């Protein structure tokens, strides 16, 4: 049987189907241009329950409304947050890769400016919710992303977007944004954790999802006994 990578998309609320679609497209593309991706299959699952967290190799937290999701996870009967925290903590033996977009970046942040709402608090960043204002100040803009946009800028979609206002030195800043009189970080990585305050899943551009797949593949190489994940192109 062929080896398999299983990525979960948190499906409590938000645009999780778009992420599933993007991961599948990104995987197909990777297989075409990089033979090391033909040694295994990709399965993308919708995640709604804590017990599903054990079965996945990586997780995507989609865009949505953070207060709504906090409500869906903090009532004590669905301890899905603690399951994610255990698997993905920076000091875990093989920490699970997570990619959070927009709301996902709020959930991963250790600090949310002026708010005590439920969060995973895994990544050393401080996030300002709704940093640009109401929907009429939502926008798309071409940005540069470290290592991804040498050939072509990336059209990033910011919807009532948060902004990363502070990071620890361990956090690698991948992209910044200046718009609507605001300036800050819009994409960053710390070890197994990747966040963007914009929404690659709403465009056709698969570069960010391919970057995440590469993170997942490397993590799987370290955590698995099969060498099928360890070839590089």
């Amino acid at each position: 049987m062929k080896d398999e990578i299983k990525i979960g998309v948190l499906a409590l609320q938000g645009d999780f189907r778009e992420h599933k679609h993007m991961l599948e497209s990104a995987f197909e593309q990777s297989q075409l241009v990089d033979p090391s991706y033909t040694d295994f299959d990709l399965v993308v699952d919708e995640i709604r329950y804590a017990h599903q967290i054990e079965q996945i190799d990586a997780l995507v937290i989609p865009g949505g409304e953070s207060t709504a999701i906090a409500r869906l996870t903090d009532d004590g009967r669905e301890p899905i947050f603690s399951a994610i925290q255990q698997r993905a903590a920076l000091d875990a033996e093989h920490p699970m890769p997570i990619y959070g977009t927009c709301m996902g970046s709020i959930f991963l942040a250790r600090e949310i400016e002026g708010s005590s709402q439920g969060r995973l608090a895994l990544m050393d960043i401080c996030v300002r919710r709704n940093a640009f204002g109401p929907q009429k100040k939502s926008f798309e803009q071409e940005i540069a992303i470290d290592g991804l946009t040498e050939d072509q800028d990336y059209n990033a979609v910011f919807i009532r977007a948060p902004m990363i206002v502070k990071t620890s030195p361990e956090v690698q800043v991948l992209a910044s944004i200046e718009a609507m009189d605001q300036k800050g970080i819009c994409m960053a990585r710390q070890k197994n954790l990747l966040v963007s305050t914009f929404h690659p899943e709403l465009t056709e551009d698969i570069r960010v999802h391919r970057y995440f797949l590469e993170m997942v593949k490397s993590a799987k190489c370290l955590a698995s006994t099969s060498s099928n994940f360890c070839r590089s192109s």
Partner: protein
Amino acid sequence: MTATTSKKGPKTGTKLVKEAMPQMLKGGVIMDVVNAEQAKIAEEAGAVAVMALERVPADIRADGGVARMSDPELISKIIETVSIPVMAKARIGHFVEAQILESLGVDCVDESEVLTPADEEFHIDKSKFQIPFVCGAKNLGEALRRIGEGASMMRTKGEAGTGDVVEAVRHARAILGEIRKLTALPKEELMTYAKNIGAPYELVVKVATEGKLPVVNFAAGGIATPADAALMMQLGVDGVFVGSGIFKSGDPMKRAQAIVKATTFYQDPEVLAQVSRNLGEAMVGRNARDLKPEEALAKRGW
């Protein structure tokens, strides 16, 4: 009001930006609220957005008279109170009410049949605005006409203020059923199909190819229980609006939380049974079938 088109700077109000906002609301519940206190309860219960209005549809029905856009003061207070998106209703065809709502900073305008129409022939040109619009529809033709005018989100009309889900079911089945049929038609039949349902040809071709509406599609109009919400989700909508159903019930907070959970776990009868327990009284409701023809709100819209 027109979309910014400068090359390097941020582009606001584009089709992509307007259609992206409702994407973030999928799988969620949007609740009608008439004041800041209710908005706070809705947010705490897990609503993904609130709809600010002066009277819920059940009261509009009871009170009669002309129903208009809410007082800007009320809308501003609600915007200040919550961090989730705030929507507000404008009358069908009343583009000035929509301009006022945009200037207040609401995140989305509902051009709604629940208010008394301001124009019995034409809807608002929604493509001109920086913010998205949601509109109601009973069938695919109506949905595609609204999208053609620039709506970034659709919802069923149902029969607002009745607490009777039957019309929302009818409209969801009509829209989703027509889409399923459309995907089976050969290309040469699409033009006549477009003519027959009164929809823009390009959008008919798009739906036939993709098998879904080009924008997010919610259920609305008569949803009163967690089971109602899950029913609509299982029929294939992207999320639900609950109007009078929450704040006309015995225990709004509890019912609101239950409907939020039911909308996420719509395929899980155990969770649905759990959240449906001891919710207190549901809104009294009115049989949609017993409405006099002039009382049916779903007929408004052209």
